[in-house]
């Protein structure tokens, strides 16, 4: 276990958001485990159970060198939002956002039944991106689901987004920490493909540029 390096803020508050079934909980545990290895004290707040069934799912990570924090981030105090679905980013920004927040957003929509049935319209991509840019200090938009499907399974989008986060120079995590963490959490035959997804996510963010879109 290495000594915890300085964080941009302590506690550093990160939200991973998405829709039930996108692997949000796994992503937060992988990231939590990576940061624990680095010597940080991590507190994760999750909602699951009923919320899994097509609802919005959110994980709160509190990363600290000082100890345990509330599993719910206080309103307006997120430093980073990782969003597996673009409209979910907006929902989280409304509650936990502030002008200094960074957003990493997977661009693939998941239509809710209100949209499928025609009660509501899903916003246009350009509109959505502009709103997220307006509500953040930096934003990255990544076609993670598309890239994951190219790798054979859309579910890898969650790990790609964690890979992207590792390349954004926000938290001290890298591919080696990731490999250690997933080796403890997953069956051996899944480690290598997840490492590929992680690396692909990091490349995608670097292709967008470190300063965001």
């Amino acid at each position, binding site marked *: 276990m290495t000594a915890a390096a300085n964080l941009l803020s302590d506690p550093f508050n990160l939200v991973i958001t998405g829709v039930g079934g996108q692997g949000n909980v796994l992503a937060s545990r992988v990231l939590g485990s990576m940061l624990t290895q680095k010597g940080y004290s991590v507190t994760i707040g999750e909602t699951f159970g009923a919320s899994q069934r*097509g609802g919005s799912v959110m994980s709160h990570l509190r990363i600290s060198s000082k100890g345990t924090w509330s599993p*719910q981030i206080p309103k307006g105090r997120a430093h980073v939002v990782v969003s597996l679905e673009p409209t979910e980013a907006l929902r989280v920004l409304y509650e936990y956002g502030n002008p200094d927040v960074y957003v990493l957003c997977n661009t693939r929509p998941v239509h809710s039944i209100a949209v499928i049935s025609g009660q509501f319209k899903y916003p246009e991509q350009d509109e959505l991106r502009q709103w997220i840019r*307006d509500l953040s200090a930096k934003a990255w938009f990544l076609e993670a689901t598309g890239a994951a499907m190219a790798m054979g399974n859309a579910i890898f989008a969650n790990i790609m987004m964690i890979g992207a986060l590792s390349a954004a120079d926000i938290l001290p995590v890298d591919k080696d920490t990731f490999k250690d963490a997933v080796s403890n959490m997953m069956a051996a035959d899944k480690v290598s493909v997840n490492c590929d997804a992680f690396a692909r996510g990091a490349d995608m963010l670097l292709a967008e540029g470190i300063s965001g879109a």
Partner: protein
Amino acid sequence: MSELIEGKPGQRYLLMGNQAIARGALEAGVSVAAGYPGTPSSEIIENLAKVADEANMYVEWSSNEKVAAEVAAAASFAGLRSLCVMKQNGVNVASDFLLHLVGGGTRGGMVIVPCDDPGALSSINEGESRHFARMLEIPLLEPGDFQEAKDMVKWAFELSEQIGNLVMLRSVTRLSHASGSVKLGALPENRPRARFRHGGFVLDPQEGAVTSAPVAYKHVLQQEKLEKAESLFEDCPFNTYTGPENPELLVITSSACNLYCREAIEILGVSDRAGLLKLGTTWPLPKKLIRTHLENCSKVLVVEEVIPFLEENLKVLAAELAMEIGPRTIFAKRDKTIPSVGEMNPDYVIAALVKIFDLSYEAAPADYVEKAGLCVMAGAPGRDLTFCPGCPHRASYWTLHNVLALDNRDGFICGDIGCYSLGMRETGYYALKTMHAMGSGTGLASGFGKLDQFGMDQPIVAVSGDSTFFHSVIPALVNAVHYNADITLVVFDNSGTAMTGFQPHPGLEVDAMGHDAPSIDIESVCRAVGAQTTVCDPFDMELTRDILLEKITGKNGVQVLIFKQSCALSPEKKGKPRYEMHLDENICIGENCGCNKLCTRVFKCPGLNWDEKNQHARIDEVICAGCGVCASVCPTGAITKKERA
């Protein structure tokens, strides 16, 4: 999670609250653990079950919470340490046994862990278990963080053995389902042998028969045990105070609210004005400890969830002490300083402190919040819960809804507890019309089914999941058969306790620990009690519709229809779509078809989308699970299915 047993003592690990509780039980040398699945409690038994063989434990998913408490109590009577675990509703189920248990007392340490769900994040109530501790007259412990979630379990077992009675350790969603850093302790080596001693003098608590009678005598003993617990609580290491010696405000809290209070005090920078008394022992309250703190401060804020339990017990103490130390002002739920319903968070505590100290606080700039609010309204359409793509319940409710409409006698469905409770909402076509406790759907149907003598002529249907069937539907079914109620019970048999993560139930050939087990066949049970029983596949919509229509039409006593189709997330199905689905864009003519977008507007499977630009439905290849049901829904045959190789 191998860390649960392989983790090194003295090392820190990131553990979910439920894992921490499970590890605490292992460190306490627990031998038997029993529970019934329910969010947010399920991972405690699940994790113990995984290491049961290695830890020389016996772990089971009992058929319901009362049985779980009885199984755990038997181990205690035989001198072993035992744990029983359930969500808050389960304590209601177990309470009849528990009331008798605590009258007679326990032998080996016995701890009950109810996990409450403030805010009802995964429940249809936010009732809580703490008042049961008062009603049962047993000690109540509440961990205030993840480390305590582990450490207090061991302490709870020791306390149980010191007083010879059951101890309650209450968790909440934000501890059970949150994760934090936990330093592990050592695992014990030795294992006791089980022996139930019953040949001694009838009133001997260790050697005689166990019972709560003679009540007057045993009740006095029980209260003496509680007094002993209170005296131990005075020096309990889990009651902690941080803050100035004479604070302007004393904040008293317990459980996850401890973390919210700590953070609120830090954010507002009032640690020199507000002291935080975090109680790990909340019933009975340690009177001397409370008095010491009340003496130093005239204003108190109580932060807890959900009912004003701590508040009321504290007010009783404050009233008893008032003559000696003077009156105290107590801000809490009854004066609306703290919301009276729902779960807490740091912001509610911030708001309370801001009000009491007359401060100002802005979570984010007002113009940012306003702008974000507008964006959410315009750009984040609501996301109501829905059945998963490929879920058998969508097909089942489609048929149930359509059959009741075809029958046209205002028939209705009594709902029950599980994923299929969502049949109350849009995703289940609002098919369910009542929704209460586990097993209540069939009990209510049994009652409705006898109202024909008062002129009621509506068809009555009850639904039940497979695990719910074993939990509490059987007695209601027996009742309905015996009294010849005209009802149809539909059992949604999706091969596991799906809602809570596929825990096995008595209908499966495997037990909690992964060992082979004899299964109990639902169909045979129904036939044996005298119900006319049919099994069908809800994905075969035409046949299911015909059978159901026939069942609800006549006055035939109790009819049972078992819809057998595994959950889409079950290990045998997940990630293995049965069909390749295809939508022919030339055949789907959208608004111009007489169906009026039946598949997306009405059926609403998340695997289907409406392509606004090109005016036809399409399959979302990321989401579609390949169940093939929508091919039966589309009236023009635009959707087709092809068996995958």
